[in-house]
């Protein structure tokens, strides 16, 4: 917590706070996190959140693999990441402490449920003695609270079982944290009352727990002070907190609506992409047709079929699934049908670390098919940007008649941030030209500007035609093995993708338009990069930053921008896949990588440290 200043009351004003809630999967951690988020959003802070789920569905209680957590960072200034290090750790058991302590800032606050720190539990977490008592946490401010006991006492008269009473202890803890950060409890009270409408006794117990926790912190002086984060200066409008998954799903629904077509989503269960399927399956009233396929290949092939028959057709997956879909994507390239393939990247290769994030699939998106097989590629840069990029993906795919890969990742889809809601009236319609005259119709005739072929779907009399994976004669689309025709068609397919550059925005640079260092990222590294660069610019460092969201083709001004900087630093959660492409495509510039493959997003501090190292070692000279 930087910039602490005393005010007359025991309230300290701080500009940014990062809190992590951690406990067993059964401790209601995600619920506490989302409630705290809502209360914080209502107060007008800018915020960013990230949950962390255990890889196992039901790891044994109290063990290290069973720990789940939720981190929120909130501020009076614009923020772009869920925070590098928590200032406050709320732990519901010893395992949660063990797993998360290494991330806590020096001098940070630990709020612990002391009732769970009994030998059986702290031994299960790998502690020999009670860490709350053995002095090992000297570097932190430890607030042990007998939460289970206090909560049970508060609910002694409630008509509930011991188990039910115990389950509401997370609301007690939440009440304590609400007081600590001066949040009103009302939004959570309302939520509980609505959620447990049919179980009023549970609603009442949860509210009692919440308020008791709050009052306990207020009256017992276990904390020497509490904190306030002022309202952020946010653009006026209506907001909601949104995860990358929700934003992706909404973007797809909106795009299909704007294109006036049914939405087809074909997908096979895979972490972390499955949530898109679950989300879309709720939207049947929007004519969303979800298809849970028998495998990844069926998912993409059905998507191609749906596109052929006239739906806005999407398939979603994660890395291993993209590998399986490769052959069929080639079919979509050859048949020039619009499909969007969403790849929620995760740490690979193979099964890798399914719940952990990575940007390892850029090279596969570019090259992972046989033959000369170009597709358009986009990447979302933040949870709410998934909405924009999902719509862009559909727009580009259907207007340019091409498969398109949209890259997101585990960090983006699970993370959440406030999203200023767009006015639907202002979203532009997705125009699709399907004009075809039976007299002159050519299945592989092309729009002179975009080179897109017409999207003529079955059901139109007089336009019956055959398409398929065999090479097509230019124009007529009949099967052709003519050598020169093949070369022309390969060229046309590549040129069609290249021309998308005229239909996407130019890359924007933040900071000086030319200079010493440009930090160029792509996709989800946006938050860490922009935060680090803004911080350093306020400290007087000359560093600019830009984030690629359109990767194939690149924005038309990219080459020019790169040439205006002495050094281009490319942070990526892989070993340098974008850097290699840039070096090949735009030689003559000086590139440096910042690469991390730990299944974790970049921290702001890591980008800063690299920049500081560059400045100190004088690489620039």
């Amino acid at each position, binding site marked *: 917590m930087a910039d602490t200043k005393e005010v007359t009351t025991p309230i300290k004003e701080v500009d940014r706070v990062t809190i992590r809630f951690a406990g067993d999967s059964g401790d209601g951690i995600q619920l506490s996190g989302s409630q705290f988020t809502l209360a914080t*959003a209502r107060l007008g802070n800018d915020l960013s959140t990230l949950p962390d789920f255990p890889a196992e569905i039901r790891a044994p209680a109290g063990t290290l693999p069973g720990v789940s957590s939720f981190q929120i960072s909130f501020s009076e200034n614009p923020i772009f990441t869920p925070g590098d290090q928590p200032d406050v750790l709320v732990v519901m058991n010893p395992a949660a402490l063990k797993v998360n302590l290494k991330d806590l800032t020096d001098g940070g606050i630990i709020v612990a449920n002391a009732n769970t720190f009994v030998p059986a539990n702290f031994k299960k977490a790998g502690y020999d003695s009670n860490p709350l008592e053995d002095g090992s946490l000297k570097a932190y401010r430890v607030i042990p609270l007998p939460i289970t006991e206090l909560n049970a006492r508060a609910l002694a008269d409630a008509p509930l079982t011991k188990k039910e009473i115990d389950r509401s202890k997370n609301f007690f803890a939440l009440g304590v944290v609400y007081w600590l950060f001066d949040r009103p409890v009302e*939004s959570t009270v309302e939520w509980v009352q609505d959620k447990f409408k049919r179980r009023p006794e549970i609603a009442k117990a949860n509210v009692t727990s919440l308020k008791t926790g709050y009052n306990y912190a207020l009256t017992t002086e276990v904390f020497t002070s509490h904190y306030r984060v002022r309202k952020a200066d*946010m*653009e*006026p*409008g*209506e*907001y*909601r*907190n949104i995860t990358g998954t929700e934003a992706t799903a*909404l973007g797809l*629904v*909106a795009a299909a*609506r704007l294109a006036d077509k*049914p939405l087809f989503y*074909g997908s096979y269960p895979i972490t972390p992409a499955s949530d898109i399927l679950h989300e879309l399956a709720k*939207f049947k*009233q*929007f*004519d969303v*047709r979800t*298809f849970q*396929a*028998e*495998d990844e*290949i*069926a998912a993409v*092939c*059905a*998507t*191609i*079929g*749906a596109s*052929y*028959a*006239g*739906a806005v*057709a999407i398939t979603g997956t994660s890395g291993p699934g993209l590998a399986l879909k490769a052959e*069929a994507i080639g*079919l979509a390239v050859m*048949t020039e049908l619009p499909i969007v393939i969403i790849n929620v990247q995760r740490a690979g290769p193979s099964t890798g670390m399914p719940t952990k994030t990575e940007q390892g699939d850029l090279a596969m998106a570019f090259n992972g098919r046989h033959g000369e097989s170009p597709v358009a590629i986009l990447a979302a840069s933040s949870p709410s940007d998934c909405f924009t990029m999902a719509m862009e993906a559909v727009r580009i795919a259907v207007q340019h008649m091409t498969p398109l890969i949209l890259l997101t990742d585990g960090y983006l889809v699970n993370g959440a941030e406030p999203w200023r809601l*767009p*006015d*639907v009236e202002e979203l532009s319609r997705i125009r699709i030209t*399907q*004009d075809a005259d039976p007299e002159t119709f050519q299945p592989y005739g092309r729009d002179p500007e975009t080179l897109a072929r017409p999207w003529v*779907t*079955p*059901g*139109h*009399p007089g*336009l*019956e035609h*055959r*398409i*398929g*994976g*065999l090479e097509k004669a230019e124009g007529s689309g*009949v*099967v052709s093995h003519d050598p020169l025709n093949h070369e022309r068609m390969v060229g046309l397919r590549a040129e069609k993708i290249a021309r998308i550059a005229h239909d996407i925005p130019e890359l924007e640079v933040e900071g000086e338009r030319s200079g010493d260092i440009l930090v160029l990222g792509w996709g989800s590294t946006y938050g860490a990069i922009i935060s680090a660069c803004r911080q350093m610019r306020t400290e007087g460092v000359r560093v600019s930053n830009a984030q690629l969201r359109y990767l194939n083709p690149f924005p038309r001004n990219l080459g020019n921008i790169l040439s205006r900087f002495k050094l281009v630093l490319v942070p990526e959660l892989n070993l340098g896949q974008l850097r290699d492409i840039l070096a090949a495509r735009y030689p003559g510039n000086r590139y440096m990588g910042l690469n991390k493959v730990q299944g974790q997003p970049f921290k702001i501090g890591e980008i800063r440290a690299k920049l500081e190292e560059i400045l100190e070692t004088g690489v620039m000279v």
Partner: protein
Amino acid sequence: MATISETTPAPSLTRQDFISDQEVRWCPGCGDYAVLAQMQKILPQVGVARENFVFVSGIGCSSRFPYYMNTYGFHSIHGRGTAVATGIKCANPNLSVWVVTGDGDGLSIGGNHMLHTLRRNVDVKVLLFNNRIYGLTKGQASPTSEHGKHTKSTPVGSIENPINPVSFAISAEATFVARTVATETKHMASVLRRAADHRGAAFVEIYQNCNIFNDGTFEDVTARDVKSDRLVVLEHGKPLVFGKNSNLAVRLHNLHMEVGPLDAPSNGSHLIVHDERASDPTLAHILGNMRWPDYPECIGVFRDVRKPTYDELLLGQIDQAQSAKGAGSLQDLIHSGDTWTIE
């Protein structure tokens, strides 16, 4: 562009309307020609406008079929025709969608999609051209090749057991399952016609001769001089009587079939009256499994039951949601959940 012809009355079409301008490229004498000819003959009778037919295929000799039909057509990739067809049907259930596949395409590389397309009861008609060999890749053993079969990939005999396509389809709960022979053109035409009228997943196995790589593979049962004693033609509501002089019968004895003279004493077995509409597919399954030389082989419709199709149910859920909640408003959707306002 003209509008989707849901309402366009089917004009009177002829066989000629379904012949495309593409030169047919199968080997002379290939069994595929007969299927193509019968298909082009029956489609004008189906009462569906030409633009509402889609032929989908995977890879293999049979998968060239869509190019020769003057309808909409999609020649996809190896084994995936059924998956592509499923997507087509989800996007536009008004279309009459046909999948043309072979024993390798449909039961080896595409076996998984076949299983799931059938068990979902997607309203597509699957024609599986069974020639017990890989033709296009020039003569390897296929999943229907007989145990011990000598092919290029099994020079000293196949060590695998073949799949029985009809048995597979019945196990997958296809709602229409039939078998016919490419050389029995009348029979084939009637089976194709029945498949065309079926709503739901229809599976038709066609014994098809590959005269280049597996000539005469079904001769034992289909040859002119033996067929009447070795093929049992299934007819709904009729007893399973066959033979040159209609003197042989298939009887059920416990859980297996017995074949013998029609007038043989019953001996605890009983004559079967064929019931395509039986909801329990067990008998159909036993009939499908009858194989020469142990048994005569059955052709005709094994099973024809009506169940809700995948596409009906899919669209039904959408209709239901729309009548319960109204056709969704995008503005409301975006503004749903916990929202707040910054002034």
